[in-house]
C-alpha cells in the first residue's frame, strides 16, 4: 500500500506543478514506483512540464466517469519505467468530478504504487477539495512573499480541518542574497508563522524555467541547485535522514553549492 501526497499552496504560481513534477521524478530516481495525478482540471499543466502532453489519450475525468480503465489513462514517463502520470482533462472544469470519485482513484493507485503525488489546483474551492480527498499527507508550497505565506496559512488551516495534519512545508524560489539583506521574508519568519515542519528549501534557479519549457523536470540535471533541493526533499519523503535544513545549514549548503559551481 503506497502513500498519497498532495502538493498544494492556495496561491497560484508558487510552483505546485513544478514541485509535483520534480518530487515525482526525484522519487522515481530513488527507484520508487510513482504515479503523479494532475487534479487541475481545465488548466492542466503537469503533462506539459513532464513533456508528456502529446501522449494523452484518456484523462482523469474519463476514468472518474467510467469511460476508460484507470490503466488506460495512465501515461508512462519517457525516462522512467516506474513513473506514471494521470493527466487532468483540459476541456472540463473542476466540478466535473467529486472528491469521492478522486478518492476511489487514489485508493486504486495506492495499491500499485509506492507514492501517488497529487498536483492540486490553486484556490480553495471544489478543485482543492477534490485534490485532498484521497491524500494521506500534504506538502504545502510557498514562496517568500507575504501573499503566498498568507494563502499557505489558510490552506494549512483548511487541511487541518479536513484532518490532514502534519503537513510539510516547501519554501520555493528562495534567493539567499535577498534574504540575507532582509529584502525577502526570512525562512525562520515563514516557519514561525506557518508553524509546520519544513521539508525543503528550493533556491530560485533559472534552470527550472528552462527545464519546464523543454518538458524535462529540473531534477534530471545533476548540477542545478533546485535539482539538488528537490532530490533532498524526495529523500526526506522516503524517510532518509537528510538533515532537515535549518537556515544556517542551508546557507552552508548554498555556499557549498556555489563553491562547487565556482570550481566547476
Amino acid at each position, binding site marked *: 500500500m503506497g502513500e498519497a501526497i498532495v502538493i498544494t499552496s492556495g496561491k497560484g504560481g508558487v510552483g505546485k506543478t513544478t514541485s509535483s513534477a520534480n518530487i515525482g521524478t526525484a522519487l522515481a530516481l530513488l527507484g520508487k514506483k510513482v504515479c503523479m495525478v494532475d487534479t487541475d482540471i481545465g488548466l492542466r499543466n503537469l503533462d506539459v512540464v513532464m513533456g508528456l502532453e502529446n501522449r494523452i489519450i484518456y484523462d482523469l475525468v474519463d476514468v472518474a466517469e467510467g469511460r476508460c480503465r484507470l490503466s488506460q489513462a495512465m501515461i508512462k514517463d519517457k525516462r522512467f519505467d516506474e513513473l506514471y502520470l494521470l493527466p487532468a482533462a483540459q476541456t472540463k472544469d473542476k466540478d466535473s468530478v467529486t472528491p469521492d470519485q478522486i478518492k476511489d482513484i487514489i485508493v486504486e493507485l495506492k495499491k500499485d504504487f509506492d507514492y501517488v503525488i497529487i498536483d492540486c489546483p490553486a484556490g480553495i474551492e471544489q478543485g482543492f477539495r477534490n485534490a485532498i480527498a484521497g491524500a494521506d499527507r500534504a506538502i504545502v508550497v510557498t514562496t517568500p512573499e507575504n501573499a503566498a505565506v*498568507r494563502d499557505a*496559512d*489558510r490552506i494549512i*488551516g*483548511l487541511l487541518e480541518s479536513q484532518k490532514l495534519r502534519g503537513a510539510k512545508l516547501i519554501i520555493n524560489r528562495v534567493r539567499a542574497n535577498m534574504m540575507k539583506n532582509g529584502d525577502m521574508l526570512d525562512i525562520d519568519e515563514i516557519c514561525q*508563522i*506557518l*508553524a509546520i515542519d519544513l521539508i525543503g528549501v528550493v533556491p530560485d534557479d533559472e534552470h527550472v524555467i528552462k527545464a519546464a519549457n523543454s518538458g524535462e523536470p529540473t531534477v534530471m540535471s545533476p548540477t542545478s541547485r533546485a535539482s539538488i533541493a528537490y532530490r533532498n526533499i524526495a529523500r526526506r519523503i522516503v524517510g532518509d535522514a537528510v538533515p532537515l535544513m535549518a537556515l544556517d545549514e542551508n546557507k552552508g549548503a548554498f555556499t557549498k553549492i556555489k563553491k562547487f559551481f565556482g570550481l566547476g
Partner: protein
Amino acid sequence: MAAIKHLVTIKGVKEGLIFLLDDTCKFDSLLNDLRNKLTKTHQNILSGPEIQVQIRLGKRIISENQKQSIIDIIAKRGNLIIRSIESDVNIVQESDPTKQLRMLKTIIRSGQTIHHDGDILILGDVNPGGTITSTHNIYILGSLRGMAHAGIDGNEQAIIASSYMKPTQLRIAGIISRPPDEWGIEEAFMEFAYLSDNQMKIDKIVNIHRVRPEALELN
C-alpha cells in the same frame, strides 16, 4: 473477596434513608453502583412502603443531566421518594459565562475566526488573516499577527494582551486602530491594548494592574 469500596452508602435515619454518594469516583461508576444496589444487592431492604430519601453528593458538583440520571434510577423503585439532593459545596449559581475564561490551544490561521462571550485565552498564535473576537478581554500567549476585537458588544473596558503584539488591526468596542500609527511602540513583547478617552493605547503588561485593575479578576 477483596473489599470493594462501596460508592453508595445507605444509612437509615428517623426520617427515612440517606444515600451517601462517593465524591471521588467517576460519575458513571457511581451510577452503576447505585443501580446495582437498588436492583440487586439491597433489593430486599428497599422494597416495602414509601420511604423518604435524601441524597448527599459530598463534594461532587453535578450537572442537571447528571442529577436527572440519579433521579431516574431512584424513581425506578416506585417506593423511594427523593426529598433532597445535596452537595457539601455551596453551588454558586452557575457562574456567569461571561466571567468564565475560555482557554484554547490552537493556531488561528488565515481565514479562521474564533468568538467567545467572555474572556478568552489563546495558547498559540493568531496569524495574519485570522480573527479573534470576544465580548470581554482577549489574552494571547503567543503572537498576535491577525485581528483581535475585544469588547465586541461595546465594552470599552476590555483589553487585548499578547506576548507578541504585531496585529494587522486591533479593535476594542467601537474603536478601530491599526499599528503603528497611533501607538508609537518599538518593541512588541508582552503588551496590552486598552481604550483611554476613545483612543487605543498600548502599554507593557506590567502596567495592566494600574490601567485595568479589574481586568484579571475571574470568578
